[in-house]
């Protein structure tokens, strides 16, 4: 049976998936969901345009983690797909740094596909565009700093899995004058990106990147499901505060079931 203490999370997950599937079904039937504008993601096109006008390369960085980091890396790869298509369309020099070796063939494939889709397969050069800088956190960071300084990168899109290297990377690219869009879910590193990047995607904004950039109504319907649950959770928090003030532990017992 259900593991001890897992009943409530499992029920919440099933309920969430149910709402999500219902909204996807509604979307297929023609219901429209509107998503608020995310300036950070809107600014990506500006970042590509800037690099094109300056004649300098730009970076699309999916972060340190591999596919085992799950949704965070998947969101980062969705952004790499979007950026590489824009770069292929505008003829912008693109560099995609990779840390995790298992991510290397995936990144190679998605960037190559983007160039093929934009009708510029000859512009794809894996030697100079896809750079594996080692999967050690600090060798990867040092390699990226070297690229920033030597190639005077015009724009830097860092959306994905970042840890302690976040501050070094953001500050280095800020020093070389790069236009920066950052996005991560690691709460301890968010202030560093906010301090050094032009735009920062915080938490679930970053995870919504794939849906937002694709413009796919079914994917946007899943963001609506997230918003419904955010409201429910706010309600639960308010009820929890009131029950806590009255000395009741009923909600804690229920959530811990």
């Amino acid at each position, binding site marked *: 049976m*259900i*593991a001890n203490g897992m009943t409530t*999370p*499992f029920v919440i*997950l099933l309920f*969430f998936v149910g709402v*999500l599937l219902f909204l*996807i079904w509604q979307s297929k039937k023609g219901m429209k969901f509107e998503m608020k504008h995310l300036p950070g993601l809107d600014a990506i096109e500006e970042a590509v345009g800037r690099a094109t006008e300056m004649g300098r390369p730009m970076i699309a960085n999916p972060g340190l983690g*591999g596919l*085992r980091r*799950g*949704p*965070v890396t*998947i969101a980062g790869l*969705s952004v*790499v*797909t979007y950026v590489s298509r824009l770069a292929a369309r505008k003829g912008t020099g693109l560099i995609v740094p990779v840390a995790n*070796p*298992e991510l*290397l063939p*995936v990144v190679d*494939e*998605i*960037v*190559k*596909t983007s160039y093929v889709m934009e009708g510029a397969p000859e512009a794809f050069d894996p*030697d100079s565009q896809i750079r*594996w800088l080692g999967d050690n*956190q*600090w*060798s990867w960071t*040092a390699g990226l700093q070297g690229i920033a300084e*030597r190639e005077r990168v015009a724009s830097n899109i860092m959306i994905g899995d970042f840890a*302690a*290297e976040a*501050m*070094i990377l953001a*500050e280095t690219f800020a*020093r070389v004058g790069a236009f920066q869009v950052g996005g991560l*879910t690691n*709460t301890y590193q*968010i202030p*560093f990106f906010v301090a*050094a990047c032009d735009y920062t995607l*915080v*938490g*679930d904004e*970053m*995870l*919504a990147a*794939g849906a937002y*950039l*694709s413009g796919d109504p079914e*994917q946007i319907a*899943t963001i609506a*499901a*997230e918003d419904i*649950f*955010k409201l429910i*959770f706010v309600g639960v928090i308010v009820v929890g505060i009131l029950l806590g003030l009255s000395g009741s532990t009923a909600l804690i017992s229920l959530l811990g079931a």
Partner: protein
Amino acid sequence: MSAIVKKNIPLIVTFLIGIVLVFEWFIPTDVGNRVGTGIRESGIIINSFAIMAGVIGLYLNEARKIMRRRDDWPYSVWMIVVVSLYIAVGVPLGYQSDTYQWIYNSILMPLGATMYGAISFYIAAAAYRVLKFRSLQAIVLLLPAMILILGNTPMITSFWTGFVDSGSWIMSYITQPVYTGIMVGVALGTMATGVRTLLGLETGWLGRKEEAE
């Protein structure tokens, strides 16, 4: 054929593995545990092959740079020398051998520690740029930041601990609730991205093949 290999099969494998692992987590059974362990071990094996493929790709890539005398090609020579050294020592002796550990502890560890130590200077540079009286918002950021900086400065706290208490209050009653709010959003976003990926809606990580075909 190409669409089946590049899109459909990865999506089917992703869906099946995802469903098995979700149910193994919530409803543990002996069979589920064995299947889940097998999947995780397969992941480690695939990862090992990916590293091997990565090393071969690295050799080919760096050799190409050297032969074509591309920019910074001497670094490629150095890369090949160092990787070869680690392989020459690590494969016959093992990564736990004293020789391998000596190389690791004498080269990589100090370099890593140096990089990590440099963070403080980058934080100081970023803080200098951000913490200025430019607007009302900047002041709201600056005041608690100053309290926290002073509360973490031994020279100040040695004769007055008021900043320590104020800093703790800010971290516990202002910062932590905000972090919690972000974490709730991240948890929901993770679930939604996971479901999108399992259902094959999120295909950015496959290069959006459906448009390419």
